[in-house]
């Protein structure tokens, strides 16, 4: 027990929590933006892979780190444009289109990686973002600028959604597109914008993995983080503040399982297979979904294509 307390008091543990949380914060904000405007985006898993690859390859070719982040955001926005075209303009199933985007983005990234680096045994590396060592705040000074960016984006997205005309319009097309149309709003354009902006955030979430958390691109590096973000948005009842909380909570369990693996589960005095610890975060995501599902206030028009004059 005392070991567990010791762990919770240690700075490196919380450094790990914040690092693990960063891509989840970015991804969850991305999903949140799309869904607030009424579009489910299951493309996130693949968009994160594509963002991770595109951002990394840009830096590898000599671009600056921030240019790499920009490339990842543009890559995300491009897949967002495709998803919006399929779901908003053509009104296709948002579930199926999103899965299609995930397959397309993942396979394109893998293909592009193999074409660019046909014969490498160990993945080529770049010089990633450095920690903000000069900062006077503990835990935060072990993070990189991308983590700070993610933390700043939380109030920014909240302000954008809740306090600006654009945010109001986005929420309106996600709740009642017919009424929004009656107010003279362009439903399709607003949804395109939200999906592209959200997908850009997903791209940056992926780029965090290759430009900050690691320094190379691996095929399975996203490993379900995108799906976790989709769960976190429901857990957060579509609120940016709660999304941050959810991402931190999930990262807490992920960091905890990593530590328990290292100590062989000593904290509980039991020898358990390490896979059990790896399951913990995924299981927590499902439990969280079940707990909040009953009172989840889904955006009313989520997953409903809007066609003028059609009911």
């Amino acid at each position: 027990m005392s070991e567990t307390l010791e762990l919770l008091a240690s700075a490196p543990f919380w450094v790990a929590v914040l690092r693990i949380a960063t891509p989840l914060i970015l991804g969850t904000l991305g999903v949140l933006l799309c869904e607030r405007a009424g579009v489910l985006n299951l493309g996130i898993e693949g968009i994160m892979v594509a963002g991770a690859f595109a951002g990394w390859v840009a830096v590898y070719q000599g671009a600056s780190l921030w240019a790499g982040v920009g490339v990842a955001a543009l890559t995300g926005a491009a897949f967002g444009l495709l998803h919006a075209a399929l779901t908003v303009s053509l009104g296709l199933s948002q579930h199926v289109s999103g899965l299609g985007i995930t397959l397309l983005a993942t396979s394109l990234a893998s293909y592009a990686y193999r074409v660019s680096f046909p014969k490498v045994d160990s993945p080529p590396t770049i010089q990633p973002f450095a920690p903000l060592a000069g900062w006077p705040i503990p835990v935060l000074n072990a993070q990189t600028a991308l983590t700070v960016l993610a933390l700043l984006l939380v109030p920014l997205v909240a302000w954008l959604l809740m306090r600006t005309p654009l945010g109001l319009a986005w929420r309106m097309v996600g709740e009642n597109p017919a009424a929004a149309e009656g107010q003279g709003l362009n439903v399709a354009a607003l949804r395109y914008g939200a999906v592209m902006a959200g997908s850009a955030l997903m791209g940056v979430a992926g780029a965090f993995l290759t430009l900050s958390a690691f320094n190379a691109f691996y095929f399975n590096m996203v490993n379900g983080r995108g799906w976790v973000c989709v769960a976190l948005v429901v857990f957060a009842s579509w609120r940016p503040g709660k999304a941050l909380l959810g991402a931190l909570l999930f990262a807490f369990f992920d960091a905890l399982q990593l530590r328990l693996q290292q100590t062989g589960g000593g904290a509980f005095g039991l020898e358990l297979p390490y896979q059990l610890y790896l399951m913990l975060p995924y299981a927590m995501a499902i439990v969280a979904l079940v707990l909040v599902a009953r009172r989840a206030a889904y955006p009313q028009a989520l997953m409903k294509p809007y066609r003028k004059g059609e009911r």
Partner: protein
Amino acid sequence: MRLERRDRPSRLALLAAPLAAVAVTLALSSLLVAWAGAPVGRAYALLIEGGFGSRFALTETLTRATPLILTGLSAALAFRARLYNIGIEGQLYAGAIAAVAVGGLHGGSGFAAPAPLLFALMIGAAMAAGALLLLGPALLKSRFGVDEVVTTLLLNFIVLLAVSALLDGPMKDPTAMGWPQSVALQDSLQLDKLVPRSRVHTGLLAALALSAALWALLRFTTLGFEIRAVGSGARAAAFAGMPVAATAVKVALLSGALAGLAGAVEVAGRTGYVTLDMSPGYGMSGVVIAMLAMLNPLAVVAAAVFVAGMLVGADSMSRAVAVPTYIADVIVAIALIGMLVATLLTQYRIRR
């Protein structure tokens, strides 16, 4: 631009849609092939030849298509009732593990039972394992309104980790030199070869029979009618007095069972034991195949053979020209999106 519903889609358009989708797919993918620096014509010729062009290619494609037909049917059935089962991969592994638990453990001989009974037990256990795995998310959806897409997706990771733990522990093959591999299924439970000197096994016949059976179920039975009614609108179906929740449970059990069966068939027909890489994404491919087939169980067979042919053909093509095997995944993904758009255009026309 807006879409206007066609009064009735023409038969010609319904036939032309898949062909147009495939043509667009090949045209777009050729840009990627050219980017890799390979001659496009030769690469495509090698792709088709490697997938369908010889006895070896055909038998390999059919071997690969067998689990894909089953996962495709699993997805098609569930999607028909708007139960978005994306957990097929996990259900497949659960089925494979259950099959080996019945037919491989206990000193390598399985339970002490006559072979035909043991075989039936093995298949039953695999189907039950897959069905139970999907029952949870289906009940969570109908009771608590939890989105099944996310729960089934997350369950895939949990199941794979559980399989990994089992392969390290109670089901580990002690003779496998440390490879994470389960004990083998006993010999009498292995499926017979369908074609001599090939890997095609009788599981293919089972998959074909199930495709016809599922088509008949959807077309001629009360359950099939209920599934189609729920799929075209749960509220309307409930208003018409349909047992919506009960139908969803039945669909979940059937869809999960098909996925579990895919796992058992792979173990009994091809691998003989469970490894962590026995399925290179058959679950997600099943979803794609179902969509390519427009959720029609008979068309699932054709779509599965197409996808299997691309995967097998890409393997052999990449050995000859410098095009990475991932081209098969790209082709399948573009085909999926192309097919979605083509299907839509058979039902709607675009008006200015």
